[in-house]
């Protein structure tokens, strides 16, 4: 039945999507729309379809007696089976302090790393443009406490550990002799990594005059 093949493919694609989302927490939807990410999901989908094909060729029924349910049992096993097989390591080789895994998972690690690099390169451009646009009318001295506090208030569930790390970066910026422009861009960039582009833009929009540079005295 064609629907079972579609579901098996979707199963694999969703697992691939889950991995991409876990790597790009700030704007997962943007990351998923990049060509390398789509390629990675397609690769996982094809692996699930291949697993389903193998199961059908060998006629494995997974012990299910009802013929109507056998197909769906095969779909579930193909989805999980492909996931487990692709992420399995047969043995580890130690090279100095480094542990190198040997097996299909090694291949997947390399694919995922190249996807990550490609996605990151593509998104670096988007992020740079977005940060300079959002932060163009923001004064670092006025915003460095108010803007993060407001954005975290909007999010409500940011882990304390992340907030502490952010606090250290903020202190580094506040005490650094860099120009106000670079400090403002770094503040925006660091906040965007944590809360995402939309929350940052909302925070800047809502705080508006509170964080704008003062007009030059006439």
């Amino acid at each position, binding site marked *: 039945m064609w629907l079972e093949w579609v579901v098996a493919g979707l199963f694999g694609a969703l697992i691939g999507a889950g991995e991409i989302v876990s790597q790009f927490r700030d704007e997962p939807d943007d990351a998923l729309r990049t060509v390398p990410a789509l390629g990675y999901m397609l690769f996982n989908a094809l692996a699930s379809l291949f697993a389903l094909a193998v199961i059908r060729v060998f006629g494995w029924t997974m012990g299910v007696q009802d013929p109507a349910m056998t197909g769906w049992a095969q779909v579930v096993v193909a989805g999980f089976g492909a996931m487990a097989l692709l992420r399995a390591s047969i043995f580890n080789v130690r090279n*100095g*302090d480094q542990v190198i895994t040997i097996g299909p998972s090694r291949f997947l690690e390399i694919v995922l790393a190249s996807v990550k690099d490609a996605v*990151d390169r593509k998104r*670096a451009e988007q*992020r*740079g443009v977005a940060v300079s646009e959002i932060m163009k009318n923001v004064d670092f001295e006025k915003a460095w*406490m108010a803007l*993060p*506090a407001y954005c*975290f*208030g909007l999010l409500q569930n*940011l882990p*304390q550990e992340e*907030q*502490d*790390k952010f*606090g*250290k*970066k*903020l*202190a*580094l910026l*506040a*005490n*650094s*002799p*860099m*120009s106000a422009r*670079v400090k403002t*861009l*770094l503040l925006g*960039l*660091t906040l965007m*990594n944590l809360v995402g582009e939309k929350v940052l833009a909302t925070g800047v929009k809502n705080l508006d005059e509170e964080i704008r540079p003062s007009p030059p005295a006439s």
Partner: protein
Amino acid sequence: MQQKFVPEDDFGSFLSSVQRAVHQQKGQGASMLIMSRLARQKEAPVTQMMTKVKVSWSDFTEGLKYLEDAGLIEMEDDENGGTLRLTDEGQHWAQTISLELDDDEDQG
């Protein structure tokens, strides 16, 4: 009698942890020197970095610890005394810091 401020929620604890970090200043001077240097070369042996940033050993180690805690660099131990690398976020910082370094070089 002066009362000690006790944060009542996550929001308050964030603000007080930022204030603490801002006033701590320990290691922050060396941190920016290390970041500026890494913005140019992405990764470097610890020994080489130590000679380039020209700060005392204690400031240097405080700076490294600060950057590690902030999630901007990671240090990999090896037989040459360790290598410093920028994390993903550290690389974003380095790209932005290098804008200023490029401007300085253009003017200089």
